[in-house]
């Protein structure tokens, strides 16, 4: 079966996320929720060093995306993150990998699953919300 999206990176990161958790202390919080399916992700940001942690209740794609995002944005500025988000969204919509995205390219295959693109982008909306209104 064509399961290219569910390659090891995605499945692995969803099952054993590296940035999961609800830190006791953080500066900003954002939430993304898809009421149609019940998926929800909370994102906690520590401004210093742009450390991001997430609590994900959802599918493998959303959880992996949240975790890969946390890794990718560490140390970056809000502007750099906004640019990265745009590139990421283009990639998950078009399926075209982009060298600047690094590990995030693991999610390029989501483009084949139109109804799942939102799963991949939800953590990024949550992060944007945190950075905008925190």
């Amino acid at each position, binding site marked *: 079966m064509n*399961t290219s*999206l569910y390659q090891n990176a995605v499945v692995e990161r969803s*099952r054993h996320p590296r940035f999961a958790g609800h830190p006791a202390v953080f500066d900003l919080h954002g939430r993304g929720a898809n009421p149609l*399916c*019940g998926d929800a992700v909370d994102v906690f940001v520590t401004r210093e060093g742009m450390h991001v942690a997430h609590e994900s209740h959802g599918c*493998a*794609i959303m959880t992996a995306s949240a975790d890969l995002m946390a890794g990718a944005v560490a140390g970056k500025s809000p502007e750099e993150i906004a640019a990265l988000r745009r590139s990421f969204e283009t990639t998950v919509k078009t399926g075209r990998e982009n060298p600047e995205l690094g590990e995030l390219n693991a999610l390029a295959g989501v483009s084949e699953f139109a109804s799942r693109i939102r799963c991949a982008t939800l953590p990024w909306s949550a992060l944007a919300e945190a950075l905008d209104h925190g």
Partner: protein
Amino acid sequence: MVGETMSATLQHIDIAAIREDFPILSQQVHGKTFVYLDSGASAQKPRQVIDAMSYVMEAQYANVHRGLHYMSEKTSDAYEVVRDKVAAFINAGSRDEIVFTRNATESINLVAYTYGRTVLKPGDAVAVSQMEHHANLVPWQMLRDAHGTELRIIKITDSGEIDFNSMEEVFADGKVKLLAITQMSNVLGSYTPVERLAKFAHERGAKILLDGSQAIVHRKVDVQAIDADFYVFSGHKLYGPTGIGVLYAKAELLEAMPPFLGGGDMIASVSYEKSTWAKPPHRFEAGTPAIIETIGLGAAIDYVQGIGFEAIAAHEQVLTEHALATLDNIEGLRIIGRAQDRGGVISFVMKDVHAHDIATLLDRQGIAVRAGQHCAEPLMGRLGVTSTARASFGVYTLPEEIDALAAGLQRIRKIFA
């Protein structure tokens, strides 16, 4: 097991012939054989329904009830004949007890807006169960907020059945005037004991509204034997077109209800100062109705009755037993809902795999299942899950399709192992 099941199936129903009637079933999806296990969301349409609708548009169409010309008369006849058909189909006492709506959702809202805002009084309570579809919950919430009725929730047991102790409690103070409850859960597959529920409600001075959206597809429904006050269903789940649904209500209830939508065809007379209403059912059918779709629904009812509910029920039972046994064999899979009396709608969760991932990965194998909350968000909370995957069956479903589902799920298990 499969061999046995299949022959049991084939005794009751000529599935090969039935499948020929559904052109879509021979489609491929992602290069794979299309396995449609989402009939509970909406059923596919047989050639007979498609042809009936095309025929109207090609050869016999005009607006109904209004014209004095041939096409209008013929079309009005074809439209009104379906009212007789629906009445016979659910054994209504009279054709005038059949109101055409868009879908089950509109039927329930119609009752909530009309009966709910006049016969029900602020302080009266409406009771629903924990396993209602949003269509049979949200309208009563809206009525509560607009009109001051109370909304009470009847518990279900862990196996997914109505908890009659909870029923007693909910009805104890005599305030419940309407029990609005499903005849079959779209998540758990449970049938509810509708005769008993009706008796229970009536003995306590309440009316009963049954949401037959799922049940009507699988079982012969007799609204008089049940003694239902209101009964609703949608055409599109019954192999008919979208855009057409049914509200059955006892004649004396309809008589007493004010209109819902205002416009053409629902009036007796109109002046600027005052209008008077037509008799039911026309009082509740404002504007140009879903003519083509109603005629399509008539063809769907003919189709289902041609197969016969005995055969349909037997086929469903075989499929359901086969599916339960097969899915129970899959490690890490848990079936949600274990009612004694249950039908061909099966929800499940898998350890470490989210329902959405299941649906997407099955889709890649050509297998269509639903995943999510199934428009029953509060029930998910009751069940302690955020979502489930769901396979649901139709008259065209093959035991082999359940085997394909099981094989697909095994593959998914390996990916997430």
